[in-house]
């Protein structure tokens, strides 16, 4: 097959017709081809425009020629009308070519679409299965919204009608699937859905195959409606996997019974959790075991098609096992099976095994089993010839990494980085940086790792990475001296990467004093070292170094004259770059006029950075698409907060304002950009972040609240390169069950521009007024069209009652007096719960403050307890609230008590705050 050119090609009429147009002989030039084509196009155009009406055959002939010319890669801008005319021909061939032209060269010209739809309507009504097939194929191929409007009601009827032929049913099922993908809102669910589900029982395996695809797509959006498909799919699957290879006749593919259908059924089952009915569940487990067993049997054929089909089913079964994530036995078997594939001689299987194991690594049942393959994976990283396979190995190492093997994995990735393909370097850098941070037990190791990263792949170290190392060093007292010493040593290298100069400049500016005692790194030596790099650096780095110099003036008065000389130099004071010149002028002035005290205040050490999710992680998510990364993060639940222990939510203050090394404001940006998925829980104690992200859309939030009012800025980012159309985000308050008439929250907003360009961001401002206390958070509904399909996203807006919480400071005495006043049983709500996060005092304090309450120190006689007070402001009332949180470290439990004058408020605040620890 496809063995090469052979004589006697001209079998079909088209070849005779078209041969003169296309000469495969290489001697003819491209220009000659274009010339001939243009001549032919002109000829066809004149035929179409000519006085003489063309008969169907000639019309077909010319339309076919146009298609051919199009397929050769030339643009075609006419002939559509003639093609549409062909649709209403009674002759099959003419109709067929007409439909083909429409399918290949769709034009969104609405007048034509109406004509096309008319022709389709006639063919659908013709009861001629061949014509119906053509019409359905055309709808499925074009799948435009106009077609959905015209046929979304009709196609389901054809699909479930008792007298429809099998082949037409198949086409109708997939046609409907295409329409549903394009315009889900136009496909009405109804009686037909249950009949579609029963197609899973159909005698004709082709019908079952097509129907399974349709049901899978529909079930993803309407799981309840298609729930009954689970047991039917299981029994169908069971019949297939237990059948002998000859039972299914032509549906057996290289000795594998119905592989396509099996894969689709397994895919359908992945729309649902494990079946609840024990009988169904048992039967499914049997199926999965049978599939795993078959993998161990000797192959029935040596053909690659046999093993591919068999393994396609196996991999899909493993996906289902991972999706259910409930049968440890199956998970471990799956892992062992993949382990075998890791060493298979087929590159494809090694690739897929690495990919599949990546998801397996995130299951708690199989994480350990995956880890046993570490040596094989590292070996793959070193020896695989194909970069896409090596990429998978990197992904898997990242996924299987935990505290026990982090040092080994990071070391291997670093050494691989030296020879890694350029295309994947940046990603590896990010991964190394994340792992080093996440699993750092020893921060000296962390600093070393990042400096190594910069040394090996400085060009690929993005800003996020070097910002992050600085944030961490600033937040960890214990590593600052080591960091200063290490960067100082690294800077000794004659040629060091500019990123190192940046990190070095920043760290020495902050912590150079920690190593200044050693004469080998005295202030002057430090300064000279940095300044020796100055002239080789770009403007932003030089600006950063100037900030370092002014920090030196503060840290080391003895080098002040040297630095003033440098600042005074023409190359600084009169630098052509405005930023550099301004810094030089201002810093020089600052060093001369300011007293030591002022200088010390202005250039005070950077305060710790607030606890936030790593910006590098955000970057990796952006690179890889959120789904892959988050899953791993979520399931592993290894928190990285302890790394940047700084709890103070105060942003960079004094020194950032005056000593504006470019890193500082940028740093804050880098941090502010953190990614938090879906979880409005995360927003209870904070006001900014990413609310939602999928492949298409990212929603970011910034909000501020004062008393009973608030303002929220919602940023919608189009992550694709395609425009979003009809973009309509609508925030809707939800009423609690208690009162359907009264609104607790007023939301006011203006519509945003309905078109969002690819890569662009639009902003929406929501003004919020809290009328009375509430429990249900409002919902943000977003609708838009992306590439012809209608998208619908709903997310909870994190507007919770505590946002209207104002802190109140009070003395111990006041506190207890009020506490006693609020002693009615309805006023107190208490909750005892298990700690979901490490019990860290500083983090807890930050969370209570973030929650909105004042944190009252020295109120509770037991210093381990936390006490807070504040007022909930609503339009109708103000409610004073007192809270007390008692941690029990041994039991890893908390007891939270809330007392307010209003029961509903106590209740809601207690719920909200309990979820945070």
């Amino acid at each position, binding site marked *: *097959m*496809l*063995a*090469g*050119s*052979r004589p006697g090609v001209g*079998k*079909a*009429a*088209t*070849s005779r017709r*078209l*041969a003169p147009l*296309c000469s495969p002989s290489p001697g003819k030039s491209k220009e000659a081809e274009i010339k001939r084509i243009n001549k032919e196009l002109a000829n066809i155009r004149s035929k179409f425009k000519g006085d003489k009406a063309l008969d169907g055959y000639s019309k077909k002939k010319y339309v076919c020629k146009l*298609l051919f010319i199009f*397929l050769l*890669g030339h643009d075609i801008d006419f002939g559509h009308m003639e093609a549409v005319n062909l649709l209403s021909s009674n*002759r*099959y*061939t003419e109709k*067929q070519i007409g439909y*083909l032209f429409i*399918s*290949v060269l769709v034009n969104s010209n609405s007048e034509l679409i109406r004509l096309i739809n008319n022709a389709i309507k006639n063919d659908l009504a013709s009861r001629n299965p061949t014509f119906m097939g053509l019409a359905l*194929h055309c709808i*499925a*191929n074009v799948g435009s919204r106009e077609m959905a409007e015209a046929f979304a009601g009709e196609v389901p009827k054809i699909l479930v009608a008792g007298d429809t032929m099998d082949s037409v049913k*198949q*086409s109708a099922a997939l*046609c409907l699937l*295409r329409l549903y*993908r*394009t315009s889900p809102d136009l496909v009405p669910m109804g009686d037909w859905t249950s009949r579609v589900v029963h197609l899973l029982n159909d005698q004709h*395996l*082709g019908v079952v*195959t*097509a129907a399974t*695809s349709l049901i899978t797509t529909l079930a993803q959006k309407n799981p309840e409606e298609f729930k009954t498909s689970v047991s039917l799919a299981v029994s169908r699957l069971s019949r297939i996997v237990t059948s002998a290879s000859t039972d299914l006749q032509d*549906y057996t*593919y290289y000795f594998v019974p119905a*592989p*396509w259908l099996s*894969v*689709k059924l397994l*895919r359908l089952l992945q729309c649902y959790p494990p079946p609840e009915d024990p009988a169904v569940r048992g039967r499914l487990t049997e199926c999965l075991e049978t599939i795993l067993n078959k993998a161990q049997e000797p192959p029935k054929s040596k053909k690659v*098609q046999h093993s*591919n*089909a068999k393994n*396609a089913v196996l991999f*899909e079964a493993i996906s289902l096992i991972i999706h259910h994530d409930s049968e440890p036995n199956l998970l471990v078997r799956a892992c062992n099976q993949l382990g075998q594939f890791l060493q298979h001689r087929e*590159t*494809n299987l090694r*690739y*897929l095994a690495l990919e599949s194991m990546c998801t397996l690594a995130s299951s708690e049942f199989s994480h350990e089993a995956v880890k046993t393959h570490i040596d094989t994976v590292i070996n793959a990283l070193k020896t695989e*010839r194909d970069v*896409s*396979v090596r990429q998978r190995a990197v992904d898997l190492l990242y996924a299987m990494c935990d505290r026990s093997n982090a040092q080994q994995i990071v070391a291997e990735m670093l050494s691989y980085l030296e020879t890694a393909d350029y295309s994947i370097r940046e990603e590896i850098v990010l991964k190394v940086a994340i792992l080093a941070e996440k699993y750092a037990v020893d921060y000296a190791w962390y600093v070393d790792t990042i400096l190594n990263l910069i040394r090996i792949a400085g060009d690929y170290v993005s800003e996020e990475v070097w910002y992050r190392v600085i944030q961490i060093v600033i937040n960890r007292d214990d590593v600052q001296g080591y960091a200063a010493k290490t960067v100082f040593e690294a800077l000794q290298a004659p040629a060091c990467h500019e990123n190192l100069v940046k990190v070095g400049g920043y760290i020495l500016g902050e912590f150079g004093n920690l190593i200044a005692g050693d004469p080998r790194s005295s202030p002057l030596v430090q300064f000279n070292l940095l300044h020796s790099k100055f002239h080789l650096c770009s403007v932003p780095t030089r600006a950063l170094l100037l900030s370092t110099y002014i920090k030196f003036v503060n840290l080391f008065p003895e080098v002040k004259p040297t630095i003033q000389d440098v600042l005074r130099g023409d190359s600084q004071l009169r630098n052509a770059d405005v930023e550099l010149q301004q810094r030089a002028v201002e810093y020089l002035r600052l060093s001369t006029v300011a007293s030591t005290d002022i200088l010390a205040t202005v250039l005070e050490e950077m305060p710790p950075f607030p606890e936030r999710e790593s910006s590098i992680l955000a970057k990796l998510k952006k690179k890889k*698409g959120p789904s892959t990364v988050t899953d791993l993060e979520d399931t592993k639940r290894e928190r990285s907060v302890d790394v940047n222990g700084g709890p103070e939510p105060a942003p960079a203050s004094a020194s950032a304002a005056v000593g504006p090394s470019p890193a500082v404001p940028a740093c804050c940006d880098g941090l502010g950009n953190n990614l938090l998925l879906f979880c409005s829980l995360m927003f209870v104690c904070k006001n900014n972040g990413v609310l939602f992200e999928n492949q298409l859309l990212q929603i970011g939030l910034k909000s501020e609240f004062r008393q009973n009012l608030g303002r929220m800025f919602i940023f919608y980012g189009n992550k694709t390169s395609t425009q979003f159309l009809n973009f309509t985000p609508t925030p809707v308050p939800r009423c609690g069950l208690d009162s359907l008439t009264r609104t607790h929250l007023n939301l006011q907003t203006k519509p945003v521009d309905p078109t969002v360009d690819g890569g662009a961001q639009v902003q929406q401002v929501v003004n919020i007024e809290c009328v009375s206390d509430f429990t249900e958070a409002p919902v943000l509904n977003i609708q838009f069209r992306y*590439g012809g*399909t209608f998208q619908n996203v709903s997310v909870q807006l994190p507007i919770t009652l505590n946002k209207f919480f104002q802190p109140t400071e009070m003395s111990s005495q006041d506190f207890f007096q009020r506490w006693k006043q609020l002693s009615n049983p309805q006023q107190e709500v208490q909750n005892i719960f298990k700690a979901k996060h490490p019990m860290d005092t500083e983090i807890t304090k930050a969370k209570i403050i973030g929650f909105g309450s004042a944190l009252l120190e020295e109120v509770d006689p037991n210093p381990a307890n936390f006490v807070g007070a504040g007022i909930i402001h609503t339009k109708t009332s103000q409610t004073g609230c007192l809270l007390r949180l008692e941690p029990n470290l041994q039991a890893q439990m908390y007891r939270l008590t809330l007392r307010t004058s209003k029961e509903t408020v106590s209740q809601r605040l207690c719920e909200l705050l309990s979820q945070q620890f």
Partner: protein
Amino acid sequence: MQFMLLFSRQGKLRLQKWYVPLSDKEKKKITRELVQTVLARKPKMCSFLEWRDLKIVYKRYASLYFCCAIEDQDNELITLEIIHRYVELLDKYFGSVCELDIIFNFEKAYFILDEFLLGGEVQETSKKNVLKAIEQADLLQEKTENMFHSKSFIGSKKAY
């Protein structure tokens, strides 16, 4: 499946089938990029690669590359066999198919593909059933051709 492309070793596009709505400009861009990427790969490399947010599955048969773009949850191996089954269908229909068959009988190549895959999903996996459908269509074609132009050009060639 989002689309399927057939192209020659010289990078000439021979057949394109798009299952998602895209503008002509985007189609051209995607085609150009993918053809380059796939042609640059060495034999023996694995048949799958990540490309944008899609997975590409490709296989070379003689001078032609068959290249499918599937989504994240789709199964790579079964897609590889979709390609193979399509090649088998072409082969059976044309009787040892070659690139020129697909160039000159492009409409047949499309019709066979539509019978096999519709809307990006497998419609009918049975080789017999797909070819039966195409044969029936050919018979209709022959009838009309005979009636109106008395030209027979398919009758001589039975697929099986």
